[in-house]
């Protein structure tokens, strides 16, 4: 009876967690898993990197057009375009740096996944080792 009482909280917890009530509580998790969120960050990083590269090429093109242009009016327009493009590129580059920095604080790589898996196995082993120590202790009377 005492054994049953001891297990009761965990059994109750299992019922809540695995039953309909648990599913309702965790429903939101289905829509926003951490991994999908991190994948989106990676996706954004790729997108912004592409745009930064494109803007960089545009800047080079505008620079050469400006040099080749003889008409001072058009030259002025091209200069304005160049400045706009440069500002756009700089702001994207800043966002990219911030995203990359955030990405480094998130465990998402295969390396981290396999390390986390190993940690779980090791936690079980550590507990079994602790139990063996306690059993050994009981024998030493």
């Amino acid at each position, binding site marked *: 009876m005492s054994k049953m009482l001891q*297990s009761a909280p965990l059994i109750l917890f299992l019922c809540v967690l695995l039953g309909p009530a648990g599913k309702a509580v965790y429903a939101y998790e289905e829509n926003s898993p951490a991994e999908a969120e991190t994948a989106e960050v990676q996706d954004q990083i790729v997108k912004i990197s592409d745009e930064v590269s494109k803007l960089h090429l545009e800047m080079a093109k505008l620079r050469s057009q400006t040099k080749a242009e003889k008409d001072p009016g058009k030259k002025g327009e091209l200069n304005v375009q160049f400045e706009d493009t440069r500002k756009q590129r700089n702001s994207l580059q800043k966002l990219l740096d911030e995203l990359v920095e955030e990405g480094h*604080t998130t465990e998402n790589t295969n390396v981290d996944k396999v390390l986390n898996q190993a940690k779980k196995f090791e936690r079980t082993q550590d507990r079994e080792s602790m139990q063996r120590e306690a059993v050994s202790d009981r024998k030493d009377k």
Partner: protein
Amino acid sequence: MIAKTSNLSVACTLSIALFLLLQTGVGIARAAVQDETPGQTQREATVSRQEAIEAIKRRAKQIIAQRKNKRLRLAGEVTAGIGVQKNPGDLPSHKGDSFVESSLFLNLTKPLTPTLTWQGSYYGSVDNYIELTDYSYTYQTLTPVKLLWKPARKWRWDGGVDLGYLVYASDNAPDYKEFKPFVGVRQDLWGNWFHAFHYEYSLRHYLSKRARNGLGVNTRTHREDMRHKGRYEIGTVWKNTLFKGRGEYYLNDSNDARNDFYDAEDWKLIGSITRRITDKFSVYASYTFERKNYRHRKVVGVRAEARYDDEQTYALSGTYDFNKNWSLTPSFSYTRLNSNEPTGEYFDWTAKAMVARKF
């Protein structure tokens, strides 16, 4: 016993209530965040380049803002399963039994700054043996504070305190509570290589067991064991396989003076391989060798020398993920202890299968 069970029940029930409360709160917060972040980026990308850039920037800013929002994250795992153990008592008689095991792991994470994160966790497990009920036990660890600090890309520091609590169902003599501060550092090396160092101090206070004097008579003081533990590990991940080598050193000192039974130095060497065979299936294999040198405890005999134990453990385990929440983990481990005290020698094996639900 009733008091113990009652305390345990109250603690677990409070944990469950707190957990559900936090889940609901975090769920509402997340739902609110999701409402503000529809997939505008994809739709607007087809409109014009300028608009696409603006959409990307908006989304990137949202992501950065969310990350900086320093929200509380909750994750955890519940497991339940059955197993068979050849020798739960580690006795020469090798009387075996089957057991039912369940465990709960909860982990709360909250970034404090971009490089500093707080974690709090709870791990509790209950092992109930069917016939050898004396060996049934509950083990709980509460980690109220664990700080993870990433000052640079290749460095990760962590430090905190574990509070452990071991309770046997039918015999309160070995029950103890434990205070374990720890600190560790991991450095990523070249490629996927890394190494790490970890130090832990533990003070184990036995709840009813008394320390004995040199004559073996109980004193008025409760038994207390102090332990220093150092660990160094090095590993690499190559083709979805983690290869890891670990060395551990333990220095145990107890206030029990009866032949200094519990004063010993341990050396442990562990080699392990963890491989993700597919996205759903991982395996883990390890070999552990442990040498325990007792400082003064003598073996039985005329020319008594200090006792030493050599323990070897082979472990094999696999995890199959049915989906991102559910998994099955069968495992097998074999342990053999050799000693210069023949009465202490034994072998044991354990086979079990656990079902886990992640959240």
